[in-house]
């Protein structure tokens, strides 16, 4: 079937997206609609003494102004964390209390203090400016290293020293022994820069309270509407679960930032009940910078030891993770189980130890962002091994090859067991495509033009398909991370797939349909995907962690197995054949080796007319399945970045970027390549362009695109891609997930290339022209000193 697995089917959803016909949360205009704007904390740490809303309330068109203490009185709950981490001394983590709106203390610039509801958005925003706050500004803590220093300002009274947890993984004593006996030791301090997620569509909510039914509906920008409903209901006491419908319609990108249930959605639901009006709020871009959960923000000191043959003997990391003013829903797991467990990389390391101290600061909460922990781990490992190769005078590719894991499954020293891979061949392919053999000549040619060429590698592995429920439960997760599917065959043979995953750019409407097409032999146009509405779809866990392929599609396969089994029974009964002889091919259900067959739509019709079904068989053809993965899946890849630096300005041009990935089996190469393009571009953004900067008082300097630099088309090259698939043995489709790999693997390749070009390894992300030029001046200065 041409629409099946592996086909380059054009994305079914793109017609509406590229013609501007997508329907996003802000596009919904509902009866009785009013608009909300938030009054936000203007400083990074403040005790709020009073809120005077009289001028705002006097403005024509203003309906209400409500505050945090009122919410508290109404029993609306504080925000929760979804994953509990235990410190190395056995004590539970300590977090500050996060109320949807401030009750006493505002703890970052942007913390919600009051909601203004008005007849128009313009009135709401103008009125919000008239709400007068009286407050005492308190000292703020901003930078992660400063937060743990003696005398640092306390973000929360109940979190002494701002330390949320002090967690460890691995065997410290074994690593110390190994490092003590090492032939060569490489040490480095690395900053994993703080990023703002910047989905194209900002967050938005439309909250509708139906007083007659005592029922709520929430349209919202969510990657996981069922989880949002569960949390809103069970923990925030907004409404009972069966009285709350959450709809995540078309969503314009998430990158993790739309996993979480933010104060604004909670407050809009509550305000809808308080005012009797439907309440719409849509973030503007500056509000997005100020309130969307940020990503990364680690500072890591690492030590890697090698024996005389270049084999890694031990690896130790010491990481500080800035979680911001409050602990967001999955913030605690990102620096721990999504980071520490990846510290083996794609190398056979006999001893590993990682320590992570997570801290509060007076900044926006930090949570999972495309890659979530794995980019931080990969950056540390891949910068370390490249640096070690330079220090030992070895070829960086050869040092990697010496240490690659060769046999699978492979049990690391840090919990995970890798499923499959062929790291040598992947690197060989990448070196071939990147023409590494010709690099010396290209470097010489560039030098003749006054330019500095550099080459950098990153060979990475990551964990996708999050995650086996019992395993994550044992590590502190509050939820299971299975996925659900329902396959509905209509009487005319067309198929509807109801999935608990949510597509916000991933192309599920196409790839999920391809899986059905492959199994049943019907065109993808006869398959529709239903998702994103808790009234339509059974409970599901949503989309993040590159899980919709390995977990979500596996659930669909399980449900399809059941549908096929029933279809075969119907065909065997109708065609008077043995069930074992029935095969499904090209849209027909056949008796193998004969010309007896039924068209697929005839099966559907037979099931629903039910005039002639096998004895005891229930009518209809609809099956559901829940799939809980056996393990993570482990995509891996080899990336090679080649850059040319202009020494006059520090401007870096990426002249070639090669990515060879192992995503296991691929459903749609177009979509997978698109994911790599987007992911690598985000990684280049982190490596060279993007950084959230706060001043010392906690004011955000990069609150707009005037200062926060997003990658543009002319910042990135045309990518050279290929695949080396080793199918995962652990899920029925043999797929591994591809959504995050590009963002995980690419930053160290870029920085390794730039540092190779400029001959100075002392360079942190983002490698802006200023940073690169400064590093070049430092080379000149140190050469002059010698």
């Amino acid at each position: 079937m041409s629409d099946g697995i592996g086909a380059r089917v054009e994305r079914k959803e793109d017609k509406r997206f590229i013609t501007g016909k997508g329907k996003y949360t802000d596009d919904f205009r509902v009866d009785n609609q009013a608009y909300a704007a938030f009054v936000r904390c203007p400083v990074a740490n403040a005790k709020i003494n009073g809120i005077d809303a009289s001028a705002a309330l006097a403005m024509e068109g203003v309906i209400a102004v409500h505050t945090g203490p009122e919410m508290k009185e109404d029993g609306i709950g504080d925000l929760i964390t979804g994953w509990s981490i235990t410190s190395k001394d056995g004590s539970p983590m300590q977090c500050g209390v996060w109320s949807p709106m401030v009750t006493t203390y505002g703890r970052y610039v942007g913390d919600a203090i009051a909601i203004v509801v008005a007849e128009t958005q313009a009135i709401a925003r103008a009125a919000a400016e008239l709400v007068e706050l009286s407050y005492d500004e308190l000292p703020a803590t901003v930078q992660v290293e400063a937060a743990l220093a003696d005398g640092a300002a306390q973000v929360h009274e109940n979190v002494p020293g701002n330390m949320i947890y002090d967690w460890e993984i691995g065997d410290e004593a074994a690593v110390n022994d190994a490092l003590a006996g090492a032939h060569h030791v490489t040490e480095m301090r690395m900053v994993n820069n703080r990023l703002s997620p910047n989905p194209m569509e900002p967050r938005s909510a439309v909250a509708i309270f139906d007083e007659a039914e005592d029922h709520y509906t929430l349209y919202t920008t969510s990657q996981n509407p069922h989880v949002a409903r569960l949390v809103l209901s069970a923990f925030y006491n907004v409404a009972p679960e069966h009285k709350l419908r959450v709809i995540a319609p078309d969503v314009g990108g998430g990158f993790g930032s739309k996993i979480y249930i933010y104060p604004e959605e909670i407050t809009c639901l509550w305000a809808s009940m308080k005012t009797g009006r439907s309440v719409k709020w849509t973030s503007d871009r500056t509000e997005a910078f100020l309130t969307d959960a940020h990503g990364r923000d680690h500072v890591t000191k690492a030590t890697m030891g090698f024996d005389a043959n270049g084999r890694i003997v031990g690896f130790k990391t010491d990481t500080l993770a800035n979680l911001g003013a409050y602990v967001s829903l999955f913030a605690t797991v990102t620096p721990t189980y999504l980071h520490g467990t990846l510290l083996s990389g794609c190398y056979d390391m006999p001893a590993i130890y990682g320590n992570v101290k997570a801290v509060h600061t007076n900044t926006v909460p930090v949570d999972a962002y495309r890659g979530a922990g794995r980019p931080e781990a990969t950056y540390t490992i891949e910068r370390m091994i490249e640096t070690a190769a330079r220090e030992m005078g070895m070829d960086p590719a050869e040092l990697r090859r010496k240490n690659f894991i060769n046999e699978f499954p492979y049990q690391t020293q840090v919990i995970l067991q890798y499923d499959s891979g062929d790291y040598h061949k992947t690197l060989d392919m990448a070196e071939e495509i990147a023409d590494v053999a010709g690099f010396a000549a290209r470097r010489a040619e560039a030098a003749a033009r006054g330019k500095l060429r550099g080459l950098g590698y990153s060979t990475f592995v990551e964990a996708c398909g999050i995650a086996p429920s019992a395993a994550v439960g044992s590590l502190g997760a509050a939820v299971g991370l299975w996925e659900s599917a329902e396959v509905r065959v209509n009487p005319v043979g067309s198929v509807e797939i109801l999935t608990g995953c949510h597509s916000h750019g991933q192309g599920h409407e196409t790839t999920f349909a391809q899986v059905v097409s492959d199994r049943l032999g019907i065109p993808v146009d006869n398959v529709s995907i239903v998702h994103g509405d808790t009234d339509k779809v059974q409970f599901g866990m949503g989309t993040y962690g590159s899980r919709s392929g390995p977990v979500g599609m596996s659930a669909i396969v399980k449900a399809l197995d059941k549908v096929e089994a029933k279809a075969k029974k119907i065909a065997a009964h109708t065609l008077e054949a043995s069930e074992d002889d029935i095969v499904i091919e090209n849209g027909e259900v056949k008796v193998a080796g004969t010309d007896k067959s039924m068209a697929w739509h005839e099966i559907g019709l037979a099931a629903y007319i039910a005039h002639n079904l096998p004895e005891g068989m229930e009518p209809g053809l609809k099956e559901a399945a829940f799939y809980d993965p056996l393990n993570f899946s482990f995509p891996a890849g080899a990336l090679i970045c080649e850059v040319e630096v202009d020494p006059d300005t520090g401007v870096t041009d990426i002249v070639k970027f090669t990515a060879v990935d192992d995503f296991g089996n691929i459903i749609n190469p177009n979509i997978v390549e698109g994911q790599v393009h987007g992911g690598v571009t985000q990684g280049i953004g982190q490596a060279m362009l993007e950084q959230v900067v706060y001043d010392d008082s906690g004011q955000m300097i990069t609150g707009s695109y005037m200062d926060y630099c997003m990658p543009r088309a002319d910042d990135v090259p045309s990518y050279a891609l290929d695949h080396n698939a080793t199918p995962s043995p652990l899920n029925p489709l043999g797929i591994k997930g591809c959504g995050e790999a590009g963002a995980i693997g690419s930053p160290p390749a870029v920085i390794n290339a730039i540092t190779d070009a400029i001959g100075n390894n002392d360079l942190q992300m983002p490698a802006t022209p200023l940073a690169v030029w400064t590093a070049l001046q430092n080379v000149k200065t140190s050469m002059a000193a010698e």
Partner: protein
Amino acid sequence: MYQTKYHKPASIDDAVAALAVAEDGKVLGGGQTLLPTMKQHLASPTDLVDVGGISGMADISVSDGCLTIGAGARHADVAASSVVRDAIPALACLAGGIGDPAVRSMGTIGGSVANNDPAADYPAAVLGLGATVVTNTREIAADDFFEGMFTTALEEDEIITAIKFPIPSSAGYSKFPNPASRYAMVGVFVANGGSGARVAVTGAGQDGVFRADSMESALSSNFSAGSLDGTSLDADGMMADIHGTAEYRAHLVSVVAKRAVTSAV
């Protein structure tokens, strides 16, 4: 909610009259700075006087060795104008590199010069070419016009009507864009004319656009990139932010000035 009254006068006199009676009136050119500022509530004028409807305000012509561009000429029109391309190609090139297509289709030369954003491109051309700013009441030499960041010699209710550029024998403009905003982090306009070379720098100085005297002397004796070797600017007085230290900007001025000279035609 504040109210803003919109005026679209047909003549400069009507525009001046509307401004005179307004409590806090602002002239609206292409609106590429003013309107975003109003959206953010950083400006809330009582009256907007749109000079875009005044006939003749966007004319472009050459006479007596002088290129005159009406204040209402949009960047895209200046970039595409065969008159400008023939007279001062560097100016057409500069206009074609401002902002993005949307900005170039709306923004005007008069608006840009009157606003005197320290990172704007046009002030470098006006100062670098030694142009004359023509207003409803007088003519102001470029050297007297730019008084510092967002500050000019314009009086209250004075409106720029045109800019007169003497045509040089050659001129060039080069800029180093801010990676995020793509405004000029350093932009250098160089011109070689009868009275010697002029070098104007935008984007870098704490007081907005300025002339680089040492570079002007070097280029006046020999208008070539090589003659800028050894000239350097002091980092004192340069802007500093997350994108560029004062030292980096001072260094970039030399690099960009050489590129401007190399590109000069």
